[in-house]
């Protein structure tokens, strides 16, 4: 089942850079879809369209549709706040809010108006367990989040999105600053999470893409060059450009 359908999406920023050129693709639910390719390919831009974070930047032109569960989320009448709770995002560098660990986790619920302590505590425990962080921090939830290590902070950011019980999780190079062990933990969490969530991941290396992808899309300079199911795109790509990138001839 397709959770998200992108139809003819074109995006142009105010400074003229064309970021996405007529992209059409499906994103399957309960799977990890990987968007990979060299820098400037439009992968982050696509992610930020899906949770309407691009509303914050100066966009000159945005055409096309993105259907989430059949509804076009690019429609101006969309409830963007509700969308952002449904579609969580983890950024490249862990950005912890200047709050405690617990404060970070319940922030999204608090802005929704949730005040019941039971609900908040339940969300804290659930999300930390889903991000495989519960064992490490459950005894110091009131410590400032900034005191955690880089890897822990990033898993906290993942938990923070999970606390809102989203349906889709977008991850933009989530492990780019992390050591291999932390990276492994995050990738393992994603494998667990995909059973219940739709995951779209921009990896920071082709190897990570190959490790994690259920579906993979190769982006080059705003164009969707190739899309495949499974790992075939990494072993037997159909397009020459894909093959050149995957084998390391450029990038």
């Amino acid at each position, binding site marked *: 089942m397709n959770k998200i359908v992108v139809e003819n999406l074109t995006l142009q920023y105010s400074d003229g850079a064309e970021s996405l050129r007529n992209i059409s693709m499906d994103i399957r639910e309960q799977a990890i879809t990987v968007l990979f390719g060299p820098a400037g390919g439009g992968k982050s831009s696509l992610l930020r369209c899906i*949770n309407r*974070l691009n509303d*914050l930047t100066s966009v000159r032109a945005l055409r096309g549709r993105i259907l989430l569960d059949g509804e076009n989320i690019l429609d101006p009448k969309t409830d963007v*706040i*509700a969308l*952002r*709770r449904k579609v*969580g*995002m983890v*950024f490249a*560098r862990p*950005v912890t*809010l*200047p709050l405690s660990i617990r404060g970070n986790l319940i*922030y*999204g619920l*608090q*802005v*929704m108006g949730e005040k019941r302590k039971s609900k908040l505590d339940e969300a804290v425990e659930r999300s930390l367990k889903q991000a495989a962080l519960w064992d490490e921090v459950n005894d110091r939830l009131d410590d*400032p989040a*900034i005191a955690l290590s880089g890897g822990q902070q990033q898993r906290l*950011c993942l938990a*923070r*999105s999970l606390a*809102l019980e989203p349906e889709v999780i977008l991850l933009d190079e989530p492990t780019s600053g992390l050591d291999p062990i932390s990276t492994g933990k995050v990738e393992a969490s994603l494998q667990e999470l995909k059973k219940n969530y739709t995951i779209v991941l921009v990896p920071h290396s082709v190897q990570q893409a190959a490790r994690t992808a259920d579906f993979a899309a190769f982006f080059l300079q705003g164009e969707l060059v190739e899309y495949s199911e499974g790992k075939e795109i990494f072993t037997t790509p159909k397009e020459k450009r894909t093959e050149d990138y995957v084998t390391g001839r450029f990038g």
Partner: protein
Amino acid sequence: MKLTLNRNLTQRLGFGLITTMALLTVLPIIGVVIYILAQGGPAISWEFLSAFPHDGMRQGGILPAIVGTFYLTLGTAAFSVPLGVAAAIYLSEYAAENMATRLIRLAIINLAGIPSVVYGLFGLGLFVLFLKFGTSILSASLTLSIMTLPVIISTSEEALRAVPESFRTVSISLGATRWQTIRRIILREALPGIITGVILGLERAAGETAPILFTGAAFFLPRLPGSPLDATMALPYHLFVISTQVPEMPFQIQYGTALVLIAFVLGMNLIATVVRSRARAKRQW
């Protein structure tokens, strides 16, 4: 060889000249403070700080002036802080970089440059006469508030802008609205910087004489002001009056008054500096 000697000599002389000029600029400042401390120190006593002036100000204390300055500072804060911080929030968080915003910034620069006596005239024309508030704490506070607005707006805006953009992005991505983001995260993190700016602005307002000359200051009042519509004595005006209008004014009282005024102003400066450095230490970013 000779060339090098010449250049080195020039440098020595040049540095010497600059250093001398800098010292000539800075040493008098220390001298001034020490002098006032020495001359005015003996006048400071509990009676001085808590009693009314007698005998045409030549004896007694300066309590009404101290209280008056306190009221004026409070009044100024009441108007300028909410307005100034809100304007800063607008400029930092909402305003796009267009013509209208440039106009606002230009207006702020202008407000900052208007001579204090012109503010006094404006206060007289608008608050005292047109709005019929009369010579009162209200008129004077409103006048001082508009004068203090530019300082509060620019320091607050700087404090807000210093908060990392990533906080805003994360907050929005978690489903918060812009105002929620401001209230819960941005404002809290910018607060120390804002407080510092507010204190510095109020410190300046507390020391001003010209704006309150025609809008609120009184030569002598036998009682402390009872309402915002009363006129009031104030430290800077009091100092002005006793040093220019009262014949045979004892020097010690004059210096004592100057000392209290300086202490008030510098005390606020000290508080602002302490707030600033403690906040910097506690920052989580």
